[in-house]
């Protein structure tokens, strides 16, 4: 090969690198390991962190994933393909994405879905940017954050939007939920509301939607997609529905995996589609008139529109979307619905049992779904620590970490994976530790 190139050795191929740039010094990097040695090493780390039952949600949920989902998603043809630029050689991924868009849009009760953004947090940021671009009538760049929206999403969204002069205005919750009547801003550009909200409480979404609509603002719904199998879809909220729906797809067949990779999704009414960021797949025909699929509306994207693109996103979270599409296909209408309702029943049972100990009671009184805040009689930090250290159990999210007034509160959920035995054992530990503590 060197001969064909006409050089004497490989070094010559680098002769355009100026001598004034020093040679890299990689001595600090270890010598190579074989796969066997590498797996051995990382297995030690992985094992060190293994825990037992998880009662922690707060945006990431421990659901059952059918074995078929990842067996299929990790087939080399899905796993090691690039973005489907050459449509004719990528019909597998493209058709799958089209099917994904159909499922997501329908779950949200909206017209269109894109093929993913990074995660729920950055997804909210993109949703806000999209809404602001789309809402040309707006006279300000104020975004009302209605009550208990996921705080991690908000921080992320803020990083993404604040440099474009967009301001997020937190409107505190009233007894856990958003009351638009208490909103200090009467002409928001965009309103963001989460259903169920970060505390697991159900917002009065019809009223909120109507309120937003009357003000010619756009409404962004942040949702857990699994709950949409049971809850009213954002597109049907109030008279005219939410404009945009965003969230994190993790509950749809994606392992918690420390929070990533997961995927963010965006759905919207058709009228906003040209402001949508990310890939969108459309159905078309080939030269023979047969059905085929291709990336479409690419004029929104960075590789065509560059500085005027709807976003800078390029690589997205395709593989996770692949898994989610397979997950939704296997679970289907009943599987998704029953999973959501079973999570709810398990959490209800957990809440009832904890309340029965007399050491915990619900912090808020609106109806909740799937996840719930409990005020505990005792030191929550010590409780969660002891649960992990002594019993390998994740006991929920200590809300004191985001709001001092809630420092005796735990946000808890019991997914469909938690057995009665696990819940009962948890309740017993809870009681015992607070008793001793």
């Amino acid at each position, binding site marked *: 090969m060197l001969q064909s*190139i006409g050089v004497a050795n*490989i070094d010559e191929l680098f002769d*355009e690198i100026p001598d004034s*740039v020093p*040679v890299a010094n*990689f001595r600090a990097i270890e*010598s*190579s390991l074989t*796969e066997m040695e590498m797996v051995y090493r*990382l297995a030690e780390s*992985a*094992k*060190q962190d293994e825990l037992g039952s998880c009662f*922690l949600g707060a945006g*990431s949920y421990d659901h059952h994933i059918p074995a078929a989902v990842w067996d299929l998603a*990790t087939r080399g*043809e*899905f*796993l*090691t*393909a*690039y973005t489907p630029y050459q449509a*004719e050689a990528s*019909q597998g991924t493209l*058709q799958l994405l089209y*099917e994904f868009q*159909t499922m997501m849009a329908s779950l949200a009760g909206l*017209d269109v879905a894109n093929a993913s953004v990074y995660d729920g947090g*950055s997804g909210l940021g993109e949703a806000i940017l999209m809404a602001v671009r789309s809402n040309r009538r707006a006279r300000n760049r104020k975004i009302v954050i209605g009550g208990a929206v996921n705080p991690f999403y908000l*921080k992320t969204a803020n*990083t993404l939007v604040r440099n474009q002069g967009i301001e997020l205005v937190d409107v505190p919750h009233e007894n856990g939920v958003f009351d638009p009547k208490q909103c200090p801003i009467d002409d928001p550009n965009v309103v963001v509301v989460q259903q169920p909200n970060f505390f697991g409480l159900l917002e009065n979404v019809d009223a909120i939607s109507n309120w937003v609509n009357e003000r010619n603002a756009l409404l962004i719904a942040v949702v857990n997609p699994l709950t*949409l199998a*049971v809850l*009213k*879809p954002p597109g049907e909220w109030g008279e005219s529905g939410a404009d945009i729906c965003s969230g994190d797809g993790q509950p749809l067949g994606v392992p918690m*995996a420390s*929070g*990533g*990779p997961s995927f963010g999704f965006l759905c919207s009414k058709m009228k906003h*589609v040209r402001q949508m960021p990310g890939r*969108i797949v*459309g159905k*078309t025909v*080939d030269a023979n008139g047969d*059905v085929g699929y*291709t990336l479409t509306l690419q004029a929104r994207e*960075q*590789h065509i529109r*560059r500085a005027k693109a709807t976003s800078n996103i*390029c*690589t997205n979270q*395709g593989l996770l979307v*692949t898994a989610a599409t*397979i997950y939704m*296909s*296997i679970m289907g209408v009943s599987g*998704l619905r029953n999973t959501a*309702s079973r999570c709810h029943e398990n959490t209800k049972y957990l809440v009832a049992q904890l309340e029965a100990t007399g050491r915990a009671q619900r912090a808020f009184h609106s*109806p909740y779904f799937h996840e719930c805040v409990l005020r505990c009689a005792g030191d929550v930090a010590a409780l969660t620590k002891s649960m992990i250290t002594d019993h390998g159990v994740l006991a929920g999210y200590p809300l004191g970490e985001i709001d001092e007034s809630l420092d005796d509160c735990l946000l808890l959920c019991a997914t*469909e994976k938690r057995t009665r035995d696990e819940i009962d054992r948890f309740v017993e530990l809870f009681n015992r530790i607070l008793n001793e503590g």
Partner: protein
Amino acid sequence: MPTIPSIFDTSKPGRLAGGQTPKEGDLTGLPDALLRESKPVLPEVSELQAVRHFTKLSQQNFSIDGNFYPLGSCTMKYNPRGAHRAASQPGFLNRHPLTPAFASQGLLSCFWELQETLKTVTGMEAVSLVPMAGAQGELAGGLMIRAYHEDCGDFERDEILVPTAAHGTNPATATMCGYKTREIGVAADGDVDIEDLKRVVGPKTAGIMLTNPSTCAVFERRILEIADTVHDAGGLLYYDGANLNAILGKVCPGDMGFDVLHLNLHKTFATPHGGGGPGAGPVAVNSLLQPYLPIPMVGKLDDEYIWLDESYCPLTIGKLAAFMGNAGILIRALAYALMLGREGMVRVAEYATLNANYLAAELSKAGFQLAYPTRRATHEFLITLNKEAKDLGVRALDFAKRLLDFDMHAPTTYFPLLVPECFLIEPTETETKAVLDEFVSAMCKIREEAQENAEYVKQAPHNQVVRRLDEVRAARELDLNWSGNKE
């Protein structure tokens, strides 16, 4: 291979995968008005139907595991299955992102090790692993540049310079950072036009975004001069790490005058692209920008690993992800780095460069026109099919489509925009000479075909599941989801 009906077409109301359907839960007590009435459009199929559908769909994809995939700038090299296995262990997969650090020492030690490795690889001071792709790394970089200037009380700088050949994410990122983009020219030899740079650089310059090797697939030889020019004007240098594969272990961006950069771990560190993602785009900075890195990072306090959050990093640009980014991709990248080791990393650059130069030489000998014939290829190179387009009426697009029929993915086409009818070809270090030779033969064969029957090539592909797709119609008559009635 026949086209595959949509999964909704094979659905039947009421059908389900019984083994996956938990017992229904009790919803009493929830307000009716908040419940769903409409049935969502989800498949109602058996597990076998789903398995068969997606098995069939997958077979309609080209992939690294199945095909040569010389997509320039995308570094489609072998994704070791061992890295995937290592990251798929239950201890990693089942970890809740809000598990406290004291119970996550295994994972945090991995992230720490990766941060350290990437510092060495880039020659920079500090690393944050958070960004979830290259473009998000660029955003983080842009925001850090902005934060830095603002902290210096310098509010006038509102321009980011990018070469005309830059990747689309560069100008798009500048916009998201609230900056204006100014393009600078590229000289005939592929290097940045320094005179043009000197003309536009100035007190409004927040920074410049560059790749090196550049998107023209050549090494930017006057990089140090560029760095001095921008620095002298008070601007900062951003390194777009998409092409780091070419110089891994040879030179470090930190030694070329860059202040901040991202790495595309899904390229240089071979994590699978998954038909679009996920990736990971860690950022690395010199000490100037260290205070602004996105959180969380992993720190070490005595012998314990801790998360560095706002309280440790008060000047941070903030969070970019709800949790800590694409953790699973980071583990894969660490696994890859461990397997390569220091020797292996240099080999990556050398073999990638050898393969690209060989392929360039062979194509050139076969009569194809290199875009920069006087230059070395880096890990990739550009050819222009302008002559073929003019003489035979067969464009780069047609060559690309016809290559698919030879069971090879097409190179990147029409990027960078400044080279007409171009192919950006990146064979990567994991392909054999035999594969490269086959590519040359296929290209020659297609040219022959074009000479004999241009129409045939222009109608390609011929042996794929679909013939050439009508993209114009896709955009004009938007059909973005299935609805039974439409058909």
